[in-house]
């Protein structure tokens, strides 16, 4: 029995152990990232408002997320009498499950043999799918149901309005989001995350036009591709991503002044915690997708690919900080402004951008 267990850790069977470890690490890291993000959300907001933020639990308040989680676990689970019990329970599960599944095709590093432990290098990714980009998009679009059903099942006017607003907002911004994704697919000629990231290795041979040669300066990231169209696509993607994750300045589903707490008004304890976790994990996923699609994934100038995952985390942290920065800097836009921005500005700009990039791909064969 013990021999069998040890044999799993030696070639050729340790591939399974490595794979299980990657799945487990992603699963745990996503959940822990939610706790870390809550801490930094409070700290960053405190710095921006010249406060201290959490300081009491642990050094500099670093154990505050653990205290929060323990508090949430031991709180009483409340359910309104008029609520629909099945869907009320199902809604937070849908939210968390979809945001965890959405990370499956997202890679976070190159291939590794874990310092020669494995015979064949294994990819730092759960599943390398041919249509990985679309899978993230599809799973995110199913995530809407968690919020909508929570709003309906609570049988409360604030929750219902929050759920309806959220679905309207997510449907509106999915279009611009998809157009920005299509731009990257055009540039890379593939829908697999791994191929898209590998197409971003190295440097551009030219800066603006093929005639001006400034080699080895600009990394071949999609955000710099066909300047300024790559940059526009990145900004569109990130703006739509902020709206998709219901974060400020687009946090209508939970606009406190109008809707109390929106779709999760009636939720408490762990069910509330699940919505909370889903929101933060969605931020991590959108940022990770943005890093892979536009910022070169684990490629970075002068950094060997073996340490690429560190650069990936650095880029991810930068984007997540940007999320917090947005929330504590910009006031919430009005609902009609939100719809105008989505349908009359982002969608036309995204369509024209897509056509421009398509023309560029045909003309220069990039």
């Amino acid at each position: 029995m013990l021999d069998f267990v040890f044999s799993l850790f030696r070639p050729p069977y340790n591939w399974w152990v490595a794979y299980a470890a990657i799945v487990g690490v992603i699963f745990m890291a996503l959940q822990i990232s939610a706790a870390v993000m809550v801490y930094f959300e409070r700290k960053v907001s405190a710095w921006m408002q010249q406060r201290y933020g959490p300081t009491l639990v642990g050094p500099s308040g670093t154990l505050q997320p653990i205290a929060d989680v323990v508090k949430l676990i031991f709180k009483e689970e409340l359910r309104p009498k008029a609520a629909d019990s099945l869907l009320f329970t199902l809604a937070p599960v849908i939210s968390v499950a979809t945001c965890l599944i959405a990370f499956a095709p997202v890679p976070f590093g190159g291939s590794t043999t874990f310092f020669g432990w494995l015979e064949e290098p294994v990819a730092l990714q759960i599943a390398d799918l041919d249509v990985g980009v679309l899978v993230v998009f599809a799973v995110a679009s199913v995530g809407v149901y968690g919020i909508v059903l929570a709003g309906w099942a609570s049988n409360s006017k604030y929750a219902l309005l929050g759920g309806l607003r959220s679905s309207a907002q997510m449907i509106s911004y999915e279009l611009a989001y998809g157009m920005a994704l299509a731009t990257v697919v055009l540039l890379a000629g593939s829908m697999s995350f791994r191929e898209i990231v590998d197409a971003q290795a190295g440097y551009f041979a030219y800066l603006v036009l093929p005639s001006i040669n400034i080699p080895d300066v600009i990394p071949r990231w999609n955000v710099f591709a066909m300047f300024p169209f790559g940059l526009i696509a990145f900004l569109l993607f990130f703006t739509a991503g902020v709206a998709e994750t219901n974060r400020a300045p687009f946090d209508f589903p939970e606009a406190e002044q109008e809707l109390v707490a929106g779709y999760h008004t009636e939720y408490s304890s762990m069910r509330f915690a699940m919505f909370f976790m889903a929101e933060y994990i969605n931020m991590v996923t959108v940022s990770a997708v943005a890093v892979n699609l536009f910022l070169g994934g684990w490629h970075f100038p002068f950094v060997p690919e073996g340490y690429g995952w560190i650069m990936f985390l650095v880029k991810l942290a930068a984007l997540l900080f940007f999320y917090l920065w947005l929330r504590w800097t910009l006031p919430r836009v009005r609902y009609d402004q939100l719809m105008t921005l989505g349908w009359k500005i982002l969608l036309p700009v995204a369509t024209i951008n897509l056509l421009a990039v398509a023309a560029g791909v045909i003309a220069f064969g990039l």
Partner: protein
Amino acid sequence: MAFDLIAFYVFAAITVLGALAVVGQRNPVYSVVAIVGSFCGLSGLYVLLEAPFVAVVQIIIYAGAILVLFLFTVMLLNATREDGAEWDRSHPYYRPGPTRIGGVLAVVLLGQLLWAMTHIADTGGIGEQQPAASSVRLLGRVLFTDYMFAFEVTSILIIAAMVGAVVLAGRKGN
């Protein structure tokens, strides 16, 4: 492969049970949720047929976009649970017309299914005529060359329906 077979039965069960739940219970919101589950099972079946692109598009378009609008409508209209008692009071022969039309449609569908199943051999078996159909590139090329006319006609049909809906919704008064 045994795993493929097990996966097929699991996804097929999800699809069929979801579809039964759509028509078999009386709460409209539950029906929408059940049809989402049914579509997810269908998408799993597409994956087993080595058509991942179709599987993902099934989720994006049907589960992600169209059914959200269904749910939206059901919630906004506040469609309540159907009253089962009123339904049961009527004698089977005097039930409303939709039941009988539905029965005819079910018989037609069953006939079509039986016909298709008995004629599978004529088409050279399942999934063997175009092994590369899963490729997105190939799908796009076929769609914009061989099936260009059908593709454009479908687009125009959808746009016509959309314009019609906008005109109907925008009509003042009435």
